[in-house]
C-alpha cells in the first residue's frame, strides 16, 4: 500500500481515525489517572472534601504506606493470592484442553457446554450461588463433604478465618477463569498438526516427550498471554472479595488490594492515601505484565 496511496492523506487519515478513541480514553482514563497521581502527592482527607485546599505533601503518602505493616501484608496476600490462583487456573485449564483433545466427540461437547455455562455466569450471580453453596448450615458443600467417611465438617464456617475465606475465593475465581484458559489452549492445540505428532510417535517419542517437545512449544504463545491476563485479573479481584465479605466478615483481615483501596476511598475518605495505593497497584500490575506488553509489541512489528 505504498505506491498507490496519496501521501498527504496517509499522513492525516490515521490521526482523524484515532480522534474518538483517544478522546474517550483521555476523558475516561487519562484525566482520572493524572488526577490520581496528583492527589497521591497531596494531603486529601475529610477537610479537603469540604473545600479546604489540598496541600502538596510530595511523597508523604507513599512514605506512610511504605512504613505501614498492614499495607505490606495486604500487598503480600494479594500477590500470593494472585499467583496461586493464576497458576492453578492455568494448569487446570491446560489439562482440560488436553482432555478435550483426547476424548471423543460426545464427552468433549458435554465438557465444553459445562465450561461455557460456568464462563457465562455474571460474576455477581455466580457469587450469590457460591455463597449459598458454602452456607454454613444448609450449604451443599458442607453437606457433601460431610458424607465422606471420617470428615466431620457440618456447620463449618468457611468465611470465618482468612485462610479458608481466601481458599473459597480462590476456588470461585478458578471456577470462573478455567473455561477461558481451556478454550484458548484448546484453540492453540488444534493448530498442532496430527502428522507431526504421528511422526514423533513413530520415531519412538512417548507421551511425555511429545507433550514437552512438540505440543507445549507450539501452544506456548497462547499460554503466555493467557497466563499474564490471569495475573492481571487476579491481582485486581474485587467483586468476589466484596461479596464474600458481605456474607462473612468485613474485617480488614479479609482484604486484598482492590477492597483495601475501596475502603480507604469510601470509608476513611482519605483520597490522598487511597490514590497512592492505586498508583502502587498500577505500578505492580505494569511490572508484572511488562513482559506481556513487550511480547505483543514484538509480534506487532513482525
Amino acid at each position: 500500500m505504498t505506491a498507490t496511496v496519496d501521501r498527504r492523506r496517509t499522513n492525516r487519515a490515521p490521526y482523524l481515525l484515532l480522534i474518538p478513541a483517544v478522546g474517550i480514553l483521555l476523558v475516561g482514563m487519562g484525566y482520572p489517572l493524572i488526577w490520581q497521581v496528583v492527589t497521591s502527592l497531596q494531603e486529601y482527607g475529610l477537610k479537603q472534601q469540604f473545600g479546604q485546599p489540598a496541600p502538596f505533601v510530595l511523597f508523604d503518602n507513599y512514605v506512610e504506606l511504605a512504613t505501614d505493616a498492614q499495607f505490606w501484608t495486604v500487598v503480600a496476600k494479594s500477590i500470593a493470592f494472585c499467583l496461586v490462583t493464576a497458576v492453578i487456573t492455568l494448569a487446570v485449564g491446560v489439562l482440560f484442553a488436553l482432555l478435550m483433545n483426547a476424548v471423543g466427540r460426545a464427552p468433549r461437547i458435554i465438557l465444553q457446554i459445562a465450561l461455557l455455562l460456568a464462563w457465562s455466569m455474571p460474576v455477581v450471580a455466580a457469587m450469590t450461588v457460591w455463597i449459598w453453596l458454602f452456607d454454613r448450615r444448609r450449604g451443599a458443600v458442607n453437606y457433601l463433604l460431610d458424607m465422606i467417611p471420617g470428615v466431620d465438617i457440618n456447620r463449618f464456617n468457611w468465611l470465618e478465618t482468612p485462610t479458608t475465606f481466601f481458599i473459597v475465593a480462590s476456588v470461585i475465581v478458578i471456577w470462573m477463569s478455567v473455561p477461558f484458559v481451556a478454550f484458548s489452549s484448546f484453540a492453540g492445540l488444534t493448530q498442532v498438526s496430527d502428522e507431526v505428532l504421528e511422526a514423533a510417535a513413530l520415531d519412538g517419542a512417548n507421551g511425555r516427550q511429545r507433550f514437552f517437545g512438540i505440543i507445549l512449544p507450539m501452544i506456548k504463545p497462547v499460554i503466555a498471554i493467557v497466563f499474564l491476563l490471569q495475573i492481571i485479573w487476579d491481582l485486581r479481584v474485587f467483586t468476589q472479595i466484596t461479596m464474600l465479605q458481605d456474607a462473612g466478615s468485613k474485617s480488614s483481615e479479609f482484604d486484598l488490594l482492590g477492597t483495601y483501596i475501596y475502603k480507604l476511598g469510601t470509608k476513611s475518605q482519605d483520597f490522598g492515601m487511597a490514590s497512592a495505593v492505586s498508583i502502587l497497584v498500577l505500578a505492580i500490575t505494569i511490572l508484572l505484565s511488562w513482559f506481556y506488553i513487550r511480547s505483543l509489541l514484538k509480534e506487532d512489528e513482525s
Partner: protein
Amino acid sequence: MRARTARTLLGALAIVIALVWVFPVYWMVNSSLLPNVTLQSFVPTFVPLGGSFENFASALADGEFFAALGMSVSITLIAVFFCIIFAFLGAVAISRFRFRGRTSFIIAVLVVQMLPAEGLFIAQYKMVAGAHLLDSVIGVSIIYIAAVVPFTIWMLRGFVAGVPADLEEAAMVDGLSRFGAFMRITFPLLAPGLVASGVYAFLQAWNEFTVALVLLPSESVQTLPLWLRGFVQASATRATDWGQVMAASTLVAVPVIVFFLIVQGRLTSGLVSGAVKG
C-alpha cells in the same frame, strides 16, 4: 485395545468434570424453583420435584428489578454502540497506516487495559460528580466505553490486518475510491470481528459491578448486578431467603447465558485471533 480403554476412561473423566463444573449453575436453578421451607432443611434437595416459580414472582414483585433492567439495557446499548465505532476506527488506523505516535498509541492501549477499576474509581467519581452526571446513564457509559475500547481495538486490529490491503488496491485499480474500496471489500469481511467485539463489549458492560457501584450512589438508580447485590443484602438482614435470592440470580444470569451460548463460537474465535494472531 488398550488405547480404546484409555479413551473411554478419559471420556468418563471428562463427563464427571463437566458435572462438577456445571453444578453451581444447576444448583442456582434448582434452588430457585424450591420453596424456602424445603431449602431450610439440613438435607439438600437435589432435584426440584414439585418446584414452582413462586420465588421468581416474589423477586419480580420487587419493582426495582425492572428499573434496574432498563438501566442495564440503556447503558449496555450505548456502551456497545460507541465502543464498536470508536474501536473500529482506531483499529483501521493502527493496522492500515504507519504513522508517528503509532507505537505510543499501541502501548497506551495495552497499558490502559491493565488499569484496575479499583485504582481509578475515586478520580472517576470526582470527575463524574463534577460534571453532575452521578446516577446517570451517561456518566457510567463514558467510563464503560473508555474501559472497553482498548481491548476491542486490539481484537479488531487482528481482523483488519487479516484482510489483505491488496484486495482494496485491486478494487481501486478497478476504479473505486479508497473509501469505496474499503467499504465494499474490507468492511464485509470484518463482520465477524465486529460481532465478536460487540459481544465482548456487551458482556463487559452488562456484568460490570465496581464502576456502577461507585457512580450510581443512589439506591433507586441501579444496574442489574447492583440490584442483585442489594437484593441479597436486604434478604440477609432476615434469615436469607435463598429461594428468592437464587431466583433473582437466575433472572440476572439466564439472559447472559443464553446470549453467550448463541454467540460463543464467534467470541472465542475473535478472542483467539485478537490475542494470538498478528
